[in-house]
C-alpha cells in the first residue's frame, strides 16, 4: 500500500510538470488552432535563464527562488512574443501547414543555437529553492516536488481566471471562435495573439525552472522529451481545453510512473503510449475535448 501511495506521489509530481508544459500547448492551440512546436524549447531557455540568474541570487532561499522563477517567466514571455512576431505573424492567414513547419524550424533553431551559446555539455542547475524532504511514515516527498505541484495548481487556476474572468480573456475566446468577427467588433487580434503567446511561454519558463529544480542537469536538448510527452498530454486531455491539459499531464505522469515501477519498466514508453492510443480510440477528441464539426 505504501509503495502504491509513494508511486502515486511520484507520478503526480512528474505529471504536474507535463501538465504545466501542456497548458502552453493547449492555450496557443485553443486560440490559433496550431501546435507551437517551439514551446518545448522555450521551456529549455527558461531553465537556462534560471541557470545564469541562479548564480547571482542567494542560494537556498525562498525569495531567491521566486525571483528566478519570475525572471524566467518574463524572459520566456518576451521570447514567445518575439517568436510570434518574427516567425508566425507574417504567415498568418496562410495555410496552417506553413505555420506548423515554421514552428518546427523555430524549434530546431532554438535547440541548436542553444548548443552554440550555452554549450552542449550538461550543466548543473543551482539549488535556488531551499530543499528538504518531508516524510509521512513510509511516504517521502521532497520540497521541490511540493513546489511543482503547488505552482502548477496556482498557475492553472490563474490561467482559468484570466481566460474566463478578464477582458483580455474574453477577447482571446472571441479570437478563438472567429478571428474576423472579433476584429469587426473591435478586438485587436495582434495584441490578443501576442498576449496568448506571452502567457503560454511564461508557463513554459516556469515549467523549465521547476523541471530543472527536480532534475538538476540541464542541456539544450532537454525540452525534446518532456515537450513530446506534454504535447501528448494536451491531446489526451482534449487539446484547446485548459483543465484537460492538466488532467492529461497528471494521467500520463502517473501511468508512466506505475509502468516504470513495475517489472515491465523496459517497455515503459511503449505501454504508456499504447494506453493513450486506446483512450483516444474511445474518445477521439480527448478526455475533456468536444468533437467539433469542421465547417466547410
Amino acid at each position, binding site marked *: 500500500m505504501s509503495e502504491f501511495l509513494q508511486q502515486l506521489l511520484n507520478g503526480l509530481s512528474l505529471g504536474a510538470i507535463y501538465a504545466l508544459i501542456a497548458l502552453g500547448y493547449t492555450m496557443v492551440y485553443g486560440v490559433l488552432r496550431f501546435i507551437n512546436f517551439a514551446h518545448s524549447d522555450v521551456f529549455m531557455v527558461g531553465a537556462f535563464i534560471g541557470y545564469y540568474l541562479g548564480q547571482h541570487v542567494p542560494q537556498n532561499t525562498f525569495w531567491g527562488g521566486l525571483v528566478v522563477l519570475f525572471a524566467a517567466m518574463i524572459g520566456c514571455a518576451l521570447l514567445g512574443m518575439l517568436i510570434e512576431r518574427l516567425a508566425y505573424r507574417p504567415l498568418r492567414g496562410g495555410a496552417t501547414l506553413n505555420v506548423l513547419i515554421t514552428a518546427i524550424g523555430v524549434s530546431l533553431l532554438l535547440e541548436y543555437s542553444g548548443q552554440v551559446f550555452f554549450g552542449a*555539455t550538461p550543466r548543473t542547475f543551482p539549488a535556488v529553492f531551499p530543499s528538504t524532504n518531508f516524510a509521512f511514515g513510509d511516504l517521502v516527498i521532497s520540497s521541490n516536488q511540493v513546489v511543482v505541484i503547488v505552482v502548477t495548481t496556482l498557475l492553472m487556476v490563474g490561467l482559468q481566471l484570466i481566460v474566463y474572468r478578464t477582458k483580455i480573456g474574453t477577447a482571446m475566446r472571441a479570437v478563438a471562435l472567429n478571428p474576423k468577427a472579433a476584429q469587426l467588433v473591435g478586438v485587436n487580434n495582434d495584441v490578443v495573439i501576442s498576449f496568448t503567446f506571452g502567457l503560454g511561454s511564461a508557463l513554459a519558463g516556469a515549467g523549465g525552472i521547476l523541471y530543472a529544480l527536480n532534475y538538476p542537469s540541464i542541456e539544450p536538448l532537454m525540452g525534446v522529451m518532456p515537450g513530446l510527452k506534454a504535447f501528448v498530454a494536451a491531446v489526451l486531455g482534449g487539446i484547446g481545453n485548459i483543465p484537460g491539459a492538466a488532467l492529461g499531464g497528471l494521467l500520463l505522469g502517473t501511468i508512466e*510512473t506505475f509502468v*516504470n515501477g513495475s517489472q515491465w519498466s523496459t517497455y515503459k514508453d511503449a505501454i504508456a503510449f499504447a494506453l493513450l492510443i486506446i483512450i483516444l480510440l474511445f474518445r477521439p477528441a480527448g478526455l475533456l475535448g468536444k468533437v467539433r464539426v469542421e465547417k466547410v
Partner: protein
Amino acid sequence: MMRLRYYTGIFGCVAALLTVGQADEAPIKIGQYGAFTGKEAAFGVSARKGVMLAFAEANAAGGLLGRKLELITEDNQSKAGESATIAKKFVSRDKVVAVLGGNPSTNSLEAAPILQNARIPMIAISSTNPRVTEMGSYIFRVCFIDSFQGAVLAKFARTTLHAQRAGILSSANNPYSVGIAKVFREKFTAAGGVVAIEQKHSEGDKDFRAQLTAIKNAGVDVIFHSSNYTEGALICIQARQLGFTGPLFGGDAWEAPQLIEIGGAAVEGAYYSTHASPDSTAPEMQNFIRQYRALWNGETPDSIAALGYDAARLLFDALRRAGTTESVKLREAIATTTDLPGVTGRITIDKDRNASKSAVILTVKGGKFAYVETIDP
C-alpha cells in the same frame, strides 16, 4: 675554383640533411572520433586530451618513420549514427592510417564494421562491450571488457561491501549497460548474493523515482546502476530523497567530474570501478600526470585520459615495429603487442584483440574521487 667546389659541397650536404630532417613526406594521418559535446562529452574530451598529449610528445621526439604525426579529431555530438558517418569520412576523405576511439561501446559498434571493411586498424579507447572487438580482425581495444568489470563489481559488492541483496538499475537501450548488468547478476548470484530486483530506464531519462521506489521496497542493501554519469548522478540524488541509505555504485561510465558536480552531497560515498587511478604510485602514471598537468593547465587526468594516451602509444609502438603504415603489417604489429608498459598497466593484446588488465575501485569522498582498492581478474 677549389673554394667554389668546397662551398657547393657544403650546400649539397646541408640540403641532403634538410631533406632527411624535414621529412618531406606527408605526415602520418591518424583519426580520432568521440563525443566532444553532448551528454557523453566528458569521456570524449578526456580521451582527446590524453591522445593529444601522446601526439605532442611523439612529434617533439621527431615523429615516427621519419614523418610527423597528424591527429584528425571528429565530434559525434553524443548522437547515434554520427560515429558511422565519421568512420566513412576517415576512410574516404581523410584516408587515415589508423583510428583511435570509441568511448561508449555504442559508438565503437557503429564505426567498427566500416573500418573493418576498409581494413583500417581501430583501437577502441574505453568501449568495454565484448561485441566491439568481435566486429573483426582490425578492431582492438586498450581497456578491459564488461564481463570482467561486472565480475569485479560483483566481487567488490560481496566481499568489501558485504552486500546480501542487490538491486540493479540498467539502461534498456544501451548495450554497455545491459551487458555489464547481466554479468553482475550472474557473478553476484554465484558468489552467494541475491539480485532482488532489476529495473530499466531509457537513455536520457531524468526521473527514476518510480524505479527507485520499487528497488527500495524490494529491501536491497546496495544499488548498482550500470549506465552513464548523467543518469547516475540524478539516481543518487533521487535515491537519497526517497530515503535509501545503502551504498550506490556504478561502472566506469560513472567516471566524470560531472558526477560530483550534479550529484553534490548525494554521491558522497558512492563507488565505481575504473581502469586506473591518479593516486597510483606507478612511475608511468606519475610521469603521465606530470606531463598532462603541464599541457592542460594543471588539470588532473581521469582514467579515460590515461586510456586515450595508452591507445595512442600502443599505436605508435606498433607503427615503429611495423616500420610501415601499410595496413596488413600494422594490424599484425598491433596484434602482437606484448607487455607494453602503459599508464593503465602493462598491455598485452590477447587473441581476441582485448587488453587484459586489473581494475580499480574509486569512491567519492569530500567532493573528490579517492582510491579504494585494486581488483584483479
